[in-house]
């Protein structure tokens, strides 16, 4: 499904007089369709940067990110034209971080329903499914009409996740999406992720919670040590 070949990421900060910061060095791995791969390694070793390179939020310095897409066939995400990356983001690739990244001043239920509406599902049906998903994640009805920006950390993360999985993407990138969740919510998230995986979604994820890593992942990639 996805094959990462010898990618590297360096940041050059012109604000700090050209100081160079290494994100990660020579990373290679592959994920088969329907499988889940966990990235592991200490904080600051570049795990999140890898996900951002796959999603093109970061530009990849060297190497290839070969993705077998439904829309465009086999492509290199590191150099694919921007409008095709945008099309893949709409149709195939989802990304969830631990931080809320939604349009402000939109009620939670609308935020979660948006991907369905975009796909052509009627607003009423989309909203109903969004509310169902939020309920399952213990976001009560009284919060459905509120703005997610006012939510607690854990609630924001659940809104983020709901939005990403309401229409399961082919490839889902997860960057510690459960960092602020309690054990009960964590269990629900795990169940949901196992469900979409069973329905065919390929997952690349970072979790600090070992239990999730053990139960969700088929394979673990351990980050190379970076000599500073």
């Amino acid at each position: 499904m996805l094959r990462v070949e010898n990618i590297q990421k360096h940041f050059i900060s012109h604000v700090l007089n050209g100081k160079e910061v290494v994100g990660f060095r020579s990373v290679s791995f592959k994920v088969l369709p329907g499988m889940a791969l966990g990235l592991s390694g200490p904080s600051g070793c570049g795990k999140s940067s890898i996900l951002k390179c796959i999603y093109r939020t970061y530009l990849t310095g060297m190497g290839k990110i070969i993705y077998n897409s439904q829309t465009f066939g086999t492509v290199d995400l590191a150099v694919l034209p921007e409008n095709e990356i945008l099309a893949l983001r709409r149709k195939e690739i989802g990304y969830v971080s631990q931080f809320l990244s939604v349009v402000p001043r939109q009620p939670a239920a609308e935020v979660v329903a948006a991907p369905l509406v975009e796909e052509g599902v009627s607003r009423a049906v989309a909203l109903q499914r969004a509310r169902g998903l939020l309920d399952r994640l213990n976001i009560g009805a009284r919060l459905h009409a509120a703005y997610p920006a006012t939510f607690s950390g854990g609630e924001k993360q659940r809104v983020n996740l709901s939005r990403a999985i309401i229409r399961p993407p082919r490839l889902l990138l997860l960057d510690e999406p459960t960092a602020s969740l309690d054990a009960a919510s964590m269990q629900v998230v795990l169940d949901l992720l196992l469900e979409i995986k069973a329905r065919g979604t390929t997952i690349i994820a970072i979790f600090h919670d070992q239990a999730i890593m053990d139960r969700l992942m088929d394979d673990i990639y351990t980050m190379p040590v970076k000599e500073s």
Partner: protein
Amino acid sequence: MKPILQVSGLTKRYGPGCPECLRRTGALHETNQCPHCRSIIACREITFDLFPGEVLGIVGESGSGKSTVVRLLHFDDEPTQGEFRIKLNGSAGAACNPDPGRNLFALGAFERRQIRNAHMGIVYQNARMGLRLKVSAGGNIAERLLMAGWRHVGQMRQRAAELLIATEVPVLRIDEPPQHFSGGMQQRVQIAKALSTRPAVLLLDEVTTGLDVSVQARVLDLIRSLQQETGVATIVVSHDLGVIRLLTSRTIVMRHGCIVEQGLSDQILEDPQHPYTQLLVNSML
């Protein structure tokens, strides 16, 4: 996907010009003024595509040339050089439907005006540029409909009312001149006017600059929802990265008349490459 709008090599010079102009100005030289003949190169060799349904941002500081680019595309001013093509669905060569192979800058003023009235809408920072402030709000919208070939007064009035509702301007004030309106309401009338003819391309030039934050938020939310409803391909010019983040999916960064960087908007904000873009991102509040 094929672009709906293609711009290539767009350059605008104010001043006599000399062979040195392009060589001694631009981002590398940290100036847009030719040291030899004193001409201003407002924008130079600007090339980009706009795709159907997308929102493209152009960001840069005052004087970077970003507004010049949209005003040239709206035929408000004559370019010094460059080509501009629009590819619409439907039969080329039909009434007001430009031949996709034709450089629109090479057309006569009358044809350009026709194309602009039929397919483009613009909203300026200053309502004075986009509206006649002493003519009623409804009259302002009707004027644009007239230019696009509408003739039936009742229909025009109905369309104006629909648009004022969509842009949250009280319809009861349709006969009032915008000079009596607040800044935010004037911008909403401009948006209503720009969208009245269902344009294929919408140009937004610093539309929320100068509004206070609560009004700014409402205008931006309105633009976002109308853009999603109509799917109009949009160019958003702004110096405010917050506006860019909220509205756009791709962004062009301009400085001293040049494009110094372009990319996905989240990449520009999180992994900026050019020193100027890094400075801009680091300067965000």
